[in-house]
C-alpha cells in the first residue's frame, strides 16, 4: 500500500478520479457516459502530442514547434481539400502525416546533424512554420465551407459507438507504448537521456535516434493537424496558438523529467488527461474558463516539485535489493 501511494502514476490517477467525482457531485451531468466520452475525445490531441513530445524530452531535447507544425499541416491539407475535393480521405491523412514528418525532420536534422540546441532550432522553426501558414493561404481563413464533406465528417464519425478520433488516438498510444517498452529503439531513448556518454559507448547512434524522434513527433503533429482542422472546421494562422506549452505542461505533470531519461506512457497520458479534465470540468461547474491557466500553472509547479523529490535517489539505484538496503538504512 505504501509502495502504491509512492507510485506517482497511481497518485495522479487518484487525483484525476477525485476531480472527476467532485465535479460529478456538483454537476451530475458531468458523469454521464456521453459527457465523459466527450472529455476523452477533446483530450485526444493532447494524448497523442504529449507522447510525441515525451519521446523528444527523453533524449534531453524539447520541441516548441509541434503546435505550429500542426497548424501548418492542417492548413496545407485544408488547401488541398479545397482545390481538389475529390481526393480520397486516406490520401489526405497520409499527406498530413508526410508533411508533418517532413517538417519534423527539419528540426531533427538541425538538432542531430548540425548540432544546434533543440530549444533554439524549434524556436526558429516555430516562427517559420507560423509565417508559412500565412504565406500559403495568403492570410485567409479556411472555414468548413471550404472543405469537402468527407474531410469534415471523419473525426465525428463513430465506429462501434466510439468516435473515430478515440480510435486513432488509441492506435497512436498503442504504437508509442510498443515503441517505448518493447523496442530497442525506445529503450535507447531512455539511455540517451539518462547518460549520453554511456549510451554512445553502448553503440547507440545518438544523432540517428534524435533525427528519427523529431521526425516521428512531426508525423504525429501532422496527423493531429488534419484531425484538428476537420474537427473544429477552421484553418488559420493562429490555430492551436500556445498549445506547445500545454503539451510540455502535460509531460511535466505526468512526471516526464525535463532533464531527460525519465517518463512513462501512463504518466504522460494521465498528465494530459488531467489538463483535459480541468478544461472540460470548469464550464460544467460554472467556473469561468479564465481560471484554467491559473490552475494549470499551480499544477505544473506542484507537479515539478513533487517529481524533483522522487527523481533524485531512484535514478542511481538500479537493483531492487539496493533500494531495499537504502530503505533499511
Amino acid at each position, binding site marked *: 500500500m505504501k509502495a502504491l501511494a509512492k507510485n506517482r502514476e497511481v497518485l495522479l490517477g487518484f487525483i484525476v478520479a477525485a476531480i472527476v467525482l467532485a465535479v460529478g457531485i456538483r454537476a451530475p451531468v458531468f458523469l454521464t457516459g456521453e459527457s465523459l466520452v466527450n472529455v476523452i475525445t477533446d483530450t485526444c490531441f493532447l494524448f497523442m502530442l504529449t507522447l510525441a513530445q515525451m519521446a523528444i524530452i527523453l533524449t534531453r531535447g*524539447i520541441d*516548441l514547434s509541434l503546435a505550429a507544425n500542426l497548424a501548418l499541416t492542417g492548413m496545407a491539407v485544408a488547401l488541398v481539400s479545397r482545390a481538389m475535393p475529390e481526393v480520397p480521405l486516406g490520401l489526405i491523412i497520409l499527406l498530413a502525416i508526410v508533411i508533418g514528418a517532413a517538417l519534423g525532420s527539419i528540426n531533427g536534422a*538541425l538538432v542531430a546533424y*548540425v*548540432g*544546434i*540546441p533543440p*530549444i*533554439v*532550432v524549434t*524556436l*526558429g*522553426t*516555430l*516562427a*517559420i512554420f*507560423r*509565417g*508559412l501558414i*500565412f*504565406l500559403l493561404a495568403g*492570410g485567409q481563413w479556411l472555414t468548413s465551407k471550404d472543405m469537402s464533406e468527407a474531410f469534415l465528417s471523419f473525426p465525428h464519425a463513430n465506429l462501434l459507438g466510439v468516435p473515430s478520433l478515440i480510435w486513432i488516438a488509441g492506435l497512436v498510444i498503442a504504437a508509442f507504448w510498443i515503441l517505448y517498452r518493447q523496442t530497442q529503439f525506445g529503450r535507447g531513448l531512455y539511455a540517451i537521456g539518462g547518460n549520453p556518454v554511456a549510451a554512445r559507448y553502448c553503440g547507440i547512434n545518438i544523432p540517428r535516434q534524435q533525427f528519427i524522434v523529431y521526425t516521428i513527433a512531426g508525423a504525429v503533429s501532422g496527423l493531429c493537424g488534419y484531425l484538428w482542422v476537420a474537427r473544429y472546421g477552421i484553418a488559420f*494562422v493562429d490555430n492551436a496558438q500556445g498549445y506547445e*506549452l500545454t503539451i*510540455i*505542461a502535460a509531460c*511535466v505533470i505526468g512526471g516526464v523529467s*525535463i*532533464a531527460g531519461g525519465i517518463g512513462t506512457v501512463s504518466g504522460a497520458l494521465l498528465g494530459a488527461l488531467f489538463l483535459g479534465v480541468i478544461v472540460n470540468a470548469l464550464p460544467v461547474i460554472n467556473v*469561468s474558463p*479564465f*481560471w*484554467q*491557466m*491559473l*490552475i*494549470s*500553472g*499551480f499544477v*505544473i*509547479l506542484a507537479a*515539478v*516539485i513533487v517529481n*524533483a523529490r522522487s527523481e533524485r535517489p531512484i535514478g542511481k539505484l538500479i537493483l531492487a535489493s539496493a533500494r531495499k538496503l537504502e530503505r533499511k538504512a
Partner: protein
Amino acid sequence: MSDTQRYHVLDRAPFNLASYLLRWESILVMLLVAVIIINTAISPYFLDIYNLSDATFNFSEKAIIALAMALLIITREIDLSVAANIAVCSLVMGLLSQMGYGTPILVMAGLAVGATAGAANGALVTKFRLPSIVVTIGTMSLFRGIAQVVLGDQALTKYPSALTSFGQGYIWPGVPIPNSFALFLILACMFGFVLHRTVIGRQIFAIGHNPTAARFSGIKVEKTRFWLFVLTGLMAGLAAVLLTGRIGSTRPNIALGWELEIVTMVILGGISIAGGTGTILGLVLSVFILGLTIFGLSLVNIPGIEIAILIGLLLIISIAIPIMTAKWRGRT
C-alpha cells in the same frame, strides 16, 4: 623549455586579425550594416531620423528585459515568464490607478510586483532545485492566469496622463529620442559595465562555464542566480511601466508571446543557450538588427507574420554557421 626561461602566462591573447574579424560581434556589425543598406535601398523613408526614433518604441521594452535575460542565460538559466510577469505588473498598476493613486505609486508598484514575481521564480529554482524552463512555464501560466481571472474580457484604461506621457514621450521636447530607448541605452551601458568590468560579471561567467568549479572558487552560485531572477523580474516590471504608459491600457493578453522574441534577441546576440559566453555588445547589436529589420520590412508593407519567417531563418542560420565552420575546421 630551457632553464633560463621563466614559465609565463600571457595576460591577454596575442592580437590576431582573423580572430577579431570572426568574432560574433564583428559578424553582427556586418549584418547590421547589410540590414541598413538593404532597407535604405528598398524604402526612401527608412533613413529618416523621426521614423527611426519611432521605430525604437517597438523594441525598447523587450530589449530592456533582454539585458537581464542575457545574464540569466549566461548562468544557464532562463525565464519564460517575463511576458506574463508584465501582465501582472500592468494589472496591479491598472487596479491602483482605478483607486486613484498617482504615477509615482504606480511606477513603484509595477517595479515591486515585477521584482517579487522574479523572486518567486528564483526561489522555486534555487531553493527547490528545479529546472528553470519548467518552473517559468508554470509561473508563466500562473501569472497570465491571474491577469485573466481578474480582468476576464475587460480592459483597464484609466491611467494618469503623467504615466502615458512618460511611456509615449521623448527625453526632451524636439529631441527625437524616446524615453524608453534612452532608458535602454543607459541600462545597456550599466549591464555592459557590470558584466565585463566587475567581479560580479566574472562570477556570472564562471557560473555559466562550470557551476561546480565556480562553487569551489567561493562563488555563491545559487544566491547569484536568485538575484538574477529578481533582476529579470524587475526589468519586466520596468517594461510593464513603459508599455502600460505607451498603450494606456491593460488587457489580459498584453505582451503575449514576448518571451520567445526576447529569447530570440538574446540568442542572436551570441549568448550561448548552454551558458558561459556572450557579450552585452552582441546583444545590443542583435536588438538593432532585429528592430531595424522589422521596421524596414513593415515600411514596405510586408506583414509581421512574414517577417517572422525571416527572423526564424536568421536565428537558425546565424547559430548554424559558426557551428558548421567549427566542425569543418576541425575536420581539415
